[in-house]
């Protein structure tokens, strides 16, 4: 008996050799599985996975875009705010300067007016004093002359008369 015949005879009982019916069912099952999976069952799952990946990616992209926009908006707003603050500060400074200028102007005008009035008052005062002195002098002279004429009954010479008046005026002036 040769080896081939032995193998053939042992065929169904040899646990190492594949059995025909098992190969047949295995082949049918595996080829069906391969074909149905590749053509029918697999593509929708793969497609959905890819769609989901694309969707998530696009959502991330959109979120990034919105965030960038918000950042831009914020920067814009902050820039405007800073601008408004400097503008406000500038306006306040200007107003302060204007107020200061007005104040100085008024003060200068007031002082000028004050000085003018003072000068005028001094002039008036001096004039009044001059007038009063002249008046007093002429009255006193008259009085003194009258009184002296009555007392002395004789007229004084011009020099003594003037000296007498001056002495009197000095006395009166020092009493004032």
């Amino acid at each position, binding site marked *: 008996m040769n080896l081939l015949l032995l193998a053939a005879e042992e065929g169904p009982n040899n646990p190492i050799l594949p059995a025909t019916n098992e190969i047949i069912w295995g082949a049918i099952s595996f080829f069906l599985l391969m074909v*149905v999976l590749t053509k029918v069952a697999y593509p929708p799952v793969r497609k959905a996975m890819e769609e989901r990946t694309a969707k998530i990616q696009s959502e991330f992209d959109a979120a990034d875009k919105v965030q960038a926009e918000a950042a831009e908006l914020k920067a814009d707003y902050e820039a405007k705010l800073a601008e408004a603050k400097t503008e406000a500060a500038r306006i306040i400074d200007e107003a302060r300067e204007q107020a200061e200028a007005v104040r100085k102007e008024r003060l200068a005008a007031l002082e000028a007016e004050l000085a003018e009035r003072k000068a005028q008052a001094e002039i008036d005062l001096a004039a009044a004093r001059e007038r009063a002195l002249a008046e007093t002098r002429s009255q006193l002279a008259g009085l003194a002359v009258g009184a002296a004429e009555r007392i002395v009954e004789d007229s004084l010479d011009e020099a003594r008369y003037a000296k007498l008046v001056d002495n009197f005026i000095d006395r009166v002036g020092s009493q004032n």
Partner: protein
Amino acid sequence: MIFGLEFPPIEKLVEWPSFFGGDAWYGLNKIGLSALIAMVATIAIYMAAGSKYKKRLVPTGIQTVAESGIEFIDNGIIEQTIGPEGRPWNPFLLSLFFFVLITNLFEVIPGWQMPGNARMAFPALLAVLVWVIFLGTGIKYQGAKYFKNALFPPGVPWALYFLVTPIEFVSTFLVRPFSLAVRLFANMLAGHILLVTFVVLSEALWIKQWYAVFLPLPFIMLILLTGFEIMVSFLQAYIFTILAAVYIGSSMHPEH
């Protein structure tokens, strides 16, 4: 009889009678049925997942299973072996992975307890299919140069080709499908026999004798090994798929 134990002959552990058809070529037994169930289950998972997307794009339940399968093949297998241009291989590798995984998992399903790949039929079938595919891919991508690149790797001194070329021929065109099939088959058969061994030991100690106190030992071992075999089922499905991807990848890019 080993130490008074009645260990069943190996044929009894792996050969199953047909539900119908008898010994005919179309006879459907436990092994064939596990392949059919693997096919139906995988298609059902993806059909159910695919039909749910019309309502909402956010994955729940079965969609998570379907998607993690696809992503596992994408990131865990294709990216590592072929690169991003290998994406179109995803459905094929996915079929391979789920088919091997589910037929493997019948090893631990109570009442069934027979891994489909502990028979040579599926591993041999799939290995030959992978062999045909990576040869076809090589010819499609590189034409006749594929054989030249595979048998005469560039950068080797010419005298060494007397040594290298026969080795490359044997390893690429003969050993690849053989090792692919035998690795899966032997691992699952070994796991199956291991589980049967501890079942037989536990059963032998299920007696009214004083040494029945040793029953927990093989039984705990049986439980632990069942968990281990679940891991092996995943691992072997992963190894089979990633090696298929490696072979396809090496056909797409010439060796450096």
